């Protein structure tokens, strides 16, 4: 064996072993039962560098949120606000305790939240989207003069705008400076329009499972600024009712017995789940501006499972059919390209694992295209070899010319397709990107396996001076 051939084989073997080492953790991880994986994931103990499955394959929900930039404070630049919004959403979701979530910025003002395996996205959505407008309003003693407004309010589906301000057609029916809120049991209170203290001044929040009246409660503490404001509010309104308004609904309206500054409690007929969500939202703080869900996709776990099962088995049959065909049609040469094809898949998986890439259905399409081009490269080479063989050339020349002449076509077609892949990567969103990633990796790998590796195999065969290689 010549020195250069030995080096080639060392390179190939090292790459092969490296790929195996990268793929093995995947095998260990995905052979664990589903429940155990979910548990480990939520504990953050999922190994690094694994090939991930996209939501379309494993089931789950994805939400695309738009930050309402018109409501941003002028002092906060967009980039900072987005970073903060993402951080807050991440906090809220982490505390809710679902599996591995991905929260990424997309474009200017969009945030993509992907929740794998979440069966009930509504809960998660409520958690993310909630502005959790907690406000404290002083209650006016009677509702006189508000009858008309209440009547009108009952007839409307959404009497409040996004900021919790009554819509003007109702507000004009009320005395100046007041607003009305519904209580949880269907009554109404007329309260001061202005909320002197809001949830924005909160410092921390805790859940109490069994509060005074047997229902879960949420206790909270203010920051310095909030404590000062709250002290002032309670101190000047002793013996009056204070309405605790959460998202336009009065949770409770206790009578102020004494001046309170630092700490408080929200009581009401919460369910445990409601109280838990409220605690999380209060703790994580308020979003810099309201967010709106502009895209929502939920894929049931059964659909993901079905599509992965039939898709995988069909792909496997297709691959086997190709391998078999190549072997029958091109004999030894076909077998050698089969080796390269399988190696191509192994390397592709290894590289994707290394980058913790996500495999989606369009991603599988990208793999199929790259495999097809790998086969094409080998067909090109073998057809060239056949042409030379028909001219009666010696075996060494056949192999050398086969590669030399096919190379420019293989190179040009791969480069053009990689160019397309790069454009898609640059401009594409989620699924298109997934396609581009597997395509680019696959093509790069196929240049290595279909040309470099197969040639190394032929050269190794030539060292034993064969008379002929069947093509």
């Amino acid at each position, binding site marked *: 064996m010549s020195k250069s051939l030995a080096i080639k084989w060392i390179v190939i073997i090292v790459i092969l072993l490296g790929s195996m080492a990268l793929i093995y953790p995947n095998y260990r991880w995905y052979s664990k039962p589903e429940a155990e994986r979910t548990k480990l994931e939520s504990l953050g103990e999922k190994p690094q560098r694994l090939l991930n499955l996209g939501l379309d394959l494993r089931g789950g929900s994805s939400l695309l949120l738009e930050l309402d930039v018109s409501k941003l404070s002028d002092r906060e630049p967009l980039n900072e606000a987005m970073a903060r919004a993402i951080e807050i959403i991440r906090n809220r979701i982490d505390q809710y305790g679902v599996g591995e979530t991905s929260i990424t910025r997309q474009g200017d003002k969009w945030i993509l939240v992907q929740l794998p395996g979440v069966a009930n996205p509504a809960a998660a959505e409520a958690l993310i989207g909630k502005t959790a407008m907690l406000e404290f309003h002083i209650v006016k003693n009677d509702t006189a003069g508000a009858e008309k407004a209440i009547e009108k309010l009952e007839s409307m589906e959404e009497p409040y705008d996004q900021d919790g301000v009554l819509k003007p057609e109702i507000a004009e029916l009320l005395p100046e400076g007041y607003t009305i809120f519904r209580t949880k049991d269907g009554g109404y209170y007329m309260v001061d329009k202005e909320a002197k203290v809001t949830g924005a001044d909160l410092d921390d929040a805790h859940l109490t499972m069994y509060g005074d009246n047997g229902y879960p409660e949420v206790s909270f503490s203010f920051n310095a600024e909030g404590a000062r404001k709250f002290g002032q509010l309670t101190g000047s309104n002793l013996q009056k009712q204070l309405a605790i308004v959460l998202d336009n609904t009065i949770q409770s309206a206790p009578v102020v017995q004494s001046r309170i500054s630092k700490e408080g409690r929200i009581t009401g007929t919460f369910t445990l789940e409601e109280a838990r969500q409220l605690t999380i939202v209060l703790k994580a703080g308020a979003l810099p501006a309201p967010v709106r869900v502009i895209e929502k996709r939920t*894929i049931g776990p059964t659909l993901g499972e079905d599509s992965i099962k039939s898709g995988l088995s069909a792909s496997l049959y297709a691959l086997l059919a190709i391998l078999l065909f190549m072997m029958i049609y*091109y004999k030894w040469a076909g077998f050698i390209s089969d080796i390269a094809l399988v190696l191509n898949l192994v390397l592709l998986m290894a590289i994707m694992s290394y980058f913790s890439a996500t495999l989606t*259905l369009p991603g599988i399409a990208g793999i199929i295209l790259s495999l097809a081009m790998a086969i094409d490269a080998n067909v090109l080479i073998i057809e060239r070899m056949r042409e030379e063989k028909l001219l009666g050339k010696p075996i060494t020349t056949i192999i050398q010319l086969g590669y030399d002449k096919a190379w420019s076509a293989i190179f040009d077609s791969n480069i*053009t397709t990689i160019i397309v892949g790069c454009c898609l990567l640059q401009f594409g969103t989620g699924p*298109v990107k997934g396609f581009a990633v597997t395509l680019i990796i696959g093509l790069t790998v196929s240049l290595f396996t279909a040309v470099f590796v197969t040639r190394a195999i032929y050269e190794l065969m030539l060292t034993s001076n064969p008379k002929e290689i069947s093509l």
Partner: protein
Amino acid sequence: MMTFFPKTNIDFLKYRKIYFTISTLILIFGVILFATKGLNMGIDFTGGTMVQVKFESPVEMSAIRDALTQTERESDLQSYGDNTYAVREKGAETDIAEVQAGVEKALDTLNVPYTIQQANFVGPAVGQDMTERAAWAIILSLVLIIIYVAFRFSNILWGTSGVIALFHDLFVMAVAFALTQREIDLVVVAAFLTVAGFSINDTIVIFDRIRENMRLTPRASLAELINRSINETLSRTIITSLTVVGSLFILYFFGGEALNSFAFAMLVGCICGVYTTIALTTPLVYVWTHGGENNASSSAGKPARKAEEKKPAAHMQQEPQHAPAAQQHGPKKSVRKSRRNRR
């Protein structure tokens, strides 16, 4: 040696008028089809909501449709096979939770157990953004392909023909989707992209062969070169396409519902791609290179022949870096070089 095709010597260019006629007819048919039936764009592009349910036992589609009238919303019902149905509301901006609840309530009246497999809501802004991005990606890739091919093959006509061939394949796919009224969603877009990749690949393989043959026999006419190159690569074209189409058939029939549209699109695109490469790309190069004399050359009048002979030499001239005296010595040099290779 096992071969499906003995060495062929078909005059592919001779039938170019037939190809162009066929392609023009497809083009006209397609435009009419788009204007009348239109494409069934999925909610990924139009925005809207979609709820997909699977019943545990067969249900009449009309029964489902009747039940759905209770939702008092305008929606389409589509069967996916295997007792699976999708309820769609295009362009709607309503909350998916609301739509889903309505659908569930309506379907409960059927008294057949079912599971919700998928529920999607896409806002109109998202669909628009997606379309814009896809358009940019396509425009940029096409321009880059033309530039790259022009650079590698020293001729801008070639790259342009390749891009036209690519468009032709995508157009035929779109026609197939308009004809069957299959829905175009993101996975189908991936299939379109894949076919675009195949299309370029096929084109380049033939161009590469023409380039090589030009170098080997610089005195041959372009028509001869093109025909010989197509014939020489024919067996490769067929084998590669056969493996791809074969595996796509497997995906189409056994790949499950998620891959079905993908496989369908790819099948149409790949089968069409073989035709396009042989019948459109290179004939276009031929016709454009010869411009006005297009009419005379097919029956190969002697004067036209002479004009053709000079063209390949002109191509050679554009690889001058290594051989400054290109016109005279360039061709000979490359012949000599390839002889050396053969030894």
